[in-house]
């Protein structure tokens, strides 16, 4: 497999699946122009200049670059551990982010502490950047809760499973930020599949009309479970923004530096009162949709292999090495840290207790509800009836 520049790539796939893979589709020609893609690091790890976006990463230090690398490696390690834990029966399900580390770490590291993040259910890398303990993400996948962290502790909303809903919450939150006169920004994550949802379209409308300080960060990972992006759109997704009256940019989603730069730019626009921005991070879901999915039914190996050549972690490593920004000691130390993280996550999940059965009735309402009280009492009496039998 030859290494191919993402920027130079033709439209990646035809409308069909395996049998037509590799051909360019005539449908794609209807798009107004060949999509331009912001890239600062080539898949080979070569730094390329970009007149518009270089300034957003101009001051980045070797230490910060190593930090981005570390974030991606640890996120991937965490993700691999979670997949393994699902296979071992410790988790009911896992949605892997494999391949999307650059999109998530680049955008996540662009946010400021007071910014607010509205994720889907796959933003494990963004959660990492926000300081959410990774073990907290696993409760819902283990089935002990439906969201195990306080969103306001890290300004990181709970995972949203219904596709696209959170883009409206982000927009509303951003409207509130603007009303408060704050200069925080909001970022909403969603995917290529979600781009078809009405809620995403409505969030574009509302944010544009109210000039809300929100960044729409679309990770186009090419697949919505089994449906390729061609089933969602006839135009490159970032071009949708134009119809709503705000800018849209496609960025190489496997280039952490480009994702960082473009997201910083977009967040800055939000802070400056310039309203919403759509960022389409062009990336690839290397794994299955979730552990319940079987991608062999709908896509071929060759596509995955072509994306492996553009791996976000290898690319930054190549750059760090060629620029002498990291030595063997750094990589070895990170390997140790990575394994320690895996161990910590494994142990935390295995130690995670089942919730108390009365948790069913907790937090249904903030101010209480007579029926919930009544049913809790009935449930308690029912449970207590076993104690009577045992005691008899």
């Amino acid at each position, binding site marked *: 497999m030859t290494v191919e520049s993402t920027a130079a790539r033709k439209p990646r796939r035809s409308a069909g699946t395996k049998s037509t893979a590799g051909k360019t589709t005539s449908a794609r020609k209807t798009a107004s122009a060949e999509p331009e893609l912001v890239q600062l690091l080539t898949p080979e790890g070569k730094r390329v200049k970009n007149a518009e976006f270089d300034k957003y990463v101009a001051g980045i230090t070797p230490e910060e670059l190593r930090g981005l690398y570390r974030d991606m490696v640890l996120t991937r390690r965490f993700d691999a551990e979670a997949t393994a834990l699902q296979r071992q029966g410790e988790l009911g399900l896992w949605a892997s982010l494999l391949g999307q580390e650059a999109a998530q770490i680049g955008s996540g590291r662009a946010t400021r502490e007071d910014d607010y993040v509205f994720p889907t259910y796959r933003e494990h890398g963004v959660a990492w950047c926000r300081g959410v303990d990774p073990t907290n993400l696993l409760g819902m996948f283990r089935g002990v*809760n*439906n*969201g*195990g962290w*306080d*969103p*306001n502790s890290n300004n990181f*909303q*709970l995972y*949203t499973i*219904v596709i696209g*809903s959170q*883009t*409206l*919450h*982000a*927009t*509303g*939150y*951003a*409207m*509130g*930020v603007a*009303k*408060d006169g704050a200069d925080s920004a909001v970022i909403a994550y969603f995917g290529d599949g979600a781009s078809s949802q*009405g*809620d995403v379209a*409505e*969030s574009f*409308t*509302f944010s544009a*009309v109210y000039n809300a300080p929100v960044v729409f960060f679309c990770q186009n990972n090419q697949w919505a479970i089994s449906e390729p992006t061609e089933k969602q759109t006839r135009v490159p997704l970032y071009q949708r923004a134009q119809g709503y009256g705000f800018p849209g940019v496609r960025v190489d989603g496997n280039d952490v530096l480009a994702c960082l730069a473009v997201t910083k730019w977009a967040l800055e626009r939000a802070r400056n009162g310039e309203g919403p921005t759509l960022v389409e991070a062009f990336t690839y879901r290397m794994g299955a949709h979730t552990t319940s999915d079987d991608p062999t039914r709908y896509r071929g190996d060759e596509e995955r292999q072509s994306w492996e050549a553009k791996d976000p972690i290898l690319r930054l490593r190549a750059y760090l090495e060629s620029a002498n920004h990291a030595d063997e000691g750094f990589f070895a130390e990170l390997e140790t840290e990575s394994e320690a993280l895996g161990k910590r996550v494994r142990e935390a999940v295995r130690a995670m207790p089942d919730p108390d059965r009365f948790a069913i009735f*907790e*937090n*249904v*309402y*903030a*101010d209480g*509800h*007579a*029926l*919930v009280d009544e049913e809790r009492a009935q449930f308690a009496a029912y449970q207590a009836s076993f104690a009577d039998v045992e005691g008899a």
Partner: protein
Amino acid sequence: MAAEKMALAKAINESLRRALETDPKVLVMGEDVGKLGGVFRVTDGLQKDFGESRVIDTPLAESGIVGTAIGLALRGYRPVVEIQFDGFVFPAYDQIVTQLAKMHARSLGKVKLPVVVRIPYGGGIGAVEHHSESPESLFAHVAGLKIVSPSNASDAYWMMQQAIQSDDPVIFFEPKRRYWDKGEVVTDAIPGPLHKAKVVREGRDLTLAAYGPMVKTCLEVAAAAAEEGRDLEVLDLRSVSPLDFDSIQTSVEKTRRLVVVHEAPVFFGSGAEIAARITERCFYHLEAPVLRVGGYHAPYPPARLEEEYLPGLDRVLDAVDRALAY
């Protein structure tokens, strides 16, 4: 403040005004709620007095209205959103059911969503399709939501105050055909609890339980029945979720007969739930099965047929006769 006689719509308007005045976090949002004052003028004059930032004309997208209200609530605001008509709420149904109702539980209690969704509902105004429906049961089935419906101006005023102060999402069903009915509103009185039913007419022979637009109908039924020597009790339920079963039980233990009346279709309606639970609670007190009067299992009919579809004086009296015949 003294007592004032005002229409039900005006009472809601005054209540919203009071909330906007006393709490800077309260927002009013919806389609045409600004300059126009809403299609029923419930928000009349509010944008003029509180500005476009607090009384917000929204794009015509109900899911967007509720979804952004959730986001505003996450930011600390208390949005009161208007859905223009009952039949237009369904684009927002997903946001209401999957997000508004569940986020508090999902967050293990960390997040509160004090959002009020106002929905003018019910028929009797000769409207076109989608403008006369009563979808309250579709919301009552969802844990996490509170559902209320005032029947008179005073309750409209106070229940709106309480709904806005609630830390839970409240679906506020406004009986649109009673918008213009006047009643006395005492704006400095201390109101009773939001989810408590009220006996609005005492009687001994049978209990009529209703809420929203049907309370007035039931009072007319009771007056007509009184002429025939029947002494009916009328219970204004006021809240559909939670339902005040204790008050219904107290009434039924006295009268031993219950007829539930609502405009919504009888099938899987709130009356079904009331019948089941009251049968369970009052099995040995009941002299007759709990009867229900409501809409039919058919789409809301064209306006010229709606009097046939809606529970009116005669249909409720018929049910009363049947219950008393046991």
